[in-house]
């Protein structure tokens, strides 16, 4: 190993001191023909660890597709930097710094959880870099985002709207609500309760519980003990498994409604509690419109069977596609320029296209496009929220997930 001399150290320090001055020039240098870096922060660890790998695969295949078709901005290739966010706010913030400062990324995609999105948000805005999140909490796009923050997911309050509408149709007269203390669960609970009360249904009890509790006996006893017709339990996998064991062995008969990240979790839930205890649980999750041509195209890209339902990977695909389109449209890899074109390529006006390669060609030819993504129609509000994504509803029957319906807010 090379020994560091004092001169080396001094030289490094000198370089460090010179960097702020040269930083703009470095970025300019980047603008000339080099690869276009994109930072991808995905949950490989922690409570969302199940989703990261597929999202990463979707990102890779989408980038390859674009690169094989000649890249963007006159032949420049997309280069992905995929990292594990560990479902943690501080790790994600450090990653974001690394993407921006080490890899000079102007587009940050992935960011599944709310903590990741929230902690990276100020960094992205400060550095004028686009951050595309997959998280639901309303707060992500609230306030002044200067057009740098874009959500590829339904807003949490919209989840509440869809779920409460379904609950009304299912005819529950009285409901209990329990939710994990979590940034995206609380707005869902709030909207859900308001809507249920407005519809004249009785909310017998509502409580928030902590993650990693020794047991959930007291919570289950309090809510289910009041014998509501149905209990809506918004949580994540580990707590929901403990809760359902308690419910089943406690002999409670209220119907249970939950979210798919808890009650499905790629099959881990039924594995965890067994088929009898899981029987009859309904669960909801924002999902792509599986009938849409964009989603079918995505399945082919992933090489997956036609009935496979990907929840989050289509969003990652769309994030990369929109990045590419907006850059091409703005003729610039700098986020300050292309962030202004996101709505133009996503919402239209223009011809509806669901093939990213085709769409890029059209943009290059100077035509307007209205990109239709795999996860949604990729329409946005000016504040950065996504429209046109719906929610799926499933029910567990005989140890199998049975799809019920797809609904938009």
């Amino acid at each position: 190993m090379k020994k560091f001399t004092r001169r080396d150290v001094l030289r490094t320090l000198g370089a460090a001191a010179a960097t702020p001055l040269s930083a703009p020039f470095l970025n300019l240098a980047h603008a000339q023909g080099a690869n276009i870096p994109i930072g991808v922060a995905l949950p490989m660890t922690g409570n969302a660890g199940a989703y990261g790998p597929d999202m990463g695969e979707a990102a890779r295949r989408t980038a390859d597709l674009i690169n094989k078709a000649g890249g963007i901005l006159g032949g420049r290739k997309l280069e992905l930097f995929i990292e594990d966010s560990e479902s943690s706010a501080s790790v994600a913030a450090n990653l974001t710094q690394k993407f921006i400062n080490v890899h000079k990324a102007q587009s940050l995609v992935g960011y599944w959880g709310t903590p990741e999105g929230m902690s990276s948000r100020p960094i992205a805005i400060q550095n004028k870099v686009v951050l595309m999140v997959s998280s639901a909490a309303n707060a992500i796009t609230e306030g002044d985002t200067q057009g740098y923050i874009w959500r590829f997911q339904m807003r949490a309050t919209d989840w509440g709207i869809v779920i409460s509408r379904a609950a009304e149709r299912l005819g529950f007269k009285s409901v209990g609500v329990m939710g994990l203390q979590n940034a995206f669960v609380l707005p869902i609970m709030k909207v859900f309760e308001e809507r249920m009360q407005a519809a004249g249904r009785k909310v017998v009890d509502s409580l928030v519980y902590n993650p990693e509790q020794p047991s959930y006996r007291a919570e289950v006893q309090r809510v289910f003990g009041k014998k509501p017709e149905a209990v809506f339990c918004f949580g994540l996998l580990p707590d929901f498994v403990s809760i359902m064991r308690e419910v089943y062995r406690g002999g409670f008969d209220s119907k249970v409604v939950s979210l798919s990240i808890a009650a499905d979790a790629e099959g881990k839930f039924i594995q965890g509690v067994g088929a009898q205890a899981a029987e009859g649980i309904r669960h909801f999750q924002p999902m792509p419109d599986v009938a849409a041509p964009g989603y079918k195209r995505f399945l082919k890209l992933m090489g997956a069977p036609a009935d496979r339902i990907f929840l989050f990977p289509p969003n990652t695909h769309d994030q990369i596609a929109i990045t590419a389109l907006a850059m091409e449209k703005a003729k610039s890899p700098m986020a300050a320029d292309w962030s202004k074109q996101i709505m133009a390529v996503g919402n239209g006006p223009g011809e509806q296209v669901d093939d990213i390669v085709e769409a890029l060609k059209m943009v290059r030819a100077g035509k307007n496009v209205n990109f239709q993504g795999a996860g949604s129609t990729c329409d946005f509000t000016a504040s950065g929220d996504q429209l046109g994504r719906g929610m799926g509803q499933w029910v567990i029957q005989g140890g199998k997930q049975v799809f019920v319906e797809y609904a938009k807010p």
Partner: protein
Amino acid sequence: MISFIILMSIVICFSAVLALALNFQWGSGGMVNFGLAGFYALGAYACALLMLKGGFNTFFATLGAMAIVAVACGLVAIVTLRVTEEDYFAIVTLGVGEMLRLVALNEDWLTKGALGLSGIERPFNDWVAPTSYSYVMLGFCALMVAATVWFLNKLARSPFGRVVRAVREDDVVAATLGKHVLWARIRIFAIGGALIGLAGSLHAFYYQYIDPTQFSNIVIAYAFMAVIAGGRGAYLGTILGASIVMVLLEGSRFAKDLIPSLSSDQLAAIRIIIIGVGLIALLIYRPQGFLREYRLQANLSGSKQQSP
């Protein structure tokens, strides 16, 4: 790359302040603090809330956070130590730390719960161009580390520092020699608390966003590792220890590609296992750490100055 190293250095700096606080409480004073993560969270939240809700500027918010954590630590010491000894103290700190994190998680009206607090102002933000802010932040954090080390070293060399170490070595003897042990311990824990408050404030300034997940118990393992590696009671060593721990942690992120067969899940587990094993191994094989605690060295040959 340079900018990233700068940013990592900032992280090292505020981790070092936290480790220094622990080194004062535990290394010098012998008061183990298993609630470190909770007190750290208290510092960060206090600083953020004083600014967001109290309208304080960054300077007074930091001072406020230091005072609040100092008082909290002092209270824990008073209630616990009035009657009993270190084993109970460790358990109580663990519980109080847990409780503080629960409050941060559950009191939505104050802390916005799991959503966390965002929009935290930073010191000197108005005077510095955003592109060069990280240098100013590093300078500021490094200054805080230097000030902390200077302060602690000055204390360690003072008669108070002697009492601190005496209380750690043998509280009964210290009492026999006329030292008020309980009062000394309260002060040790409170001064450490003030430094934890400082570390928490720097954390809040750096991330500009805080939420309860940032203050998990792993923080405790890292801080203990930094203190043990650096040397108990050796404050300069703590900076070295904190650097080693953070470089290992962040470096493993870069080195991930070397072992592709491991999932990130497993890698994260292995990292903590390494920290834990390292902690025990250092305790057994090198309890004195890399650097040694300050010891008074008098000039033995010099002439007598005054007769007693």
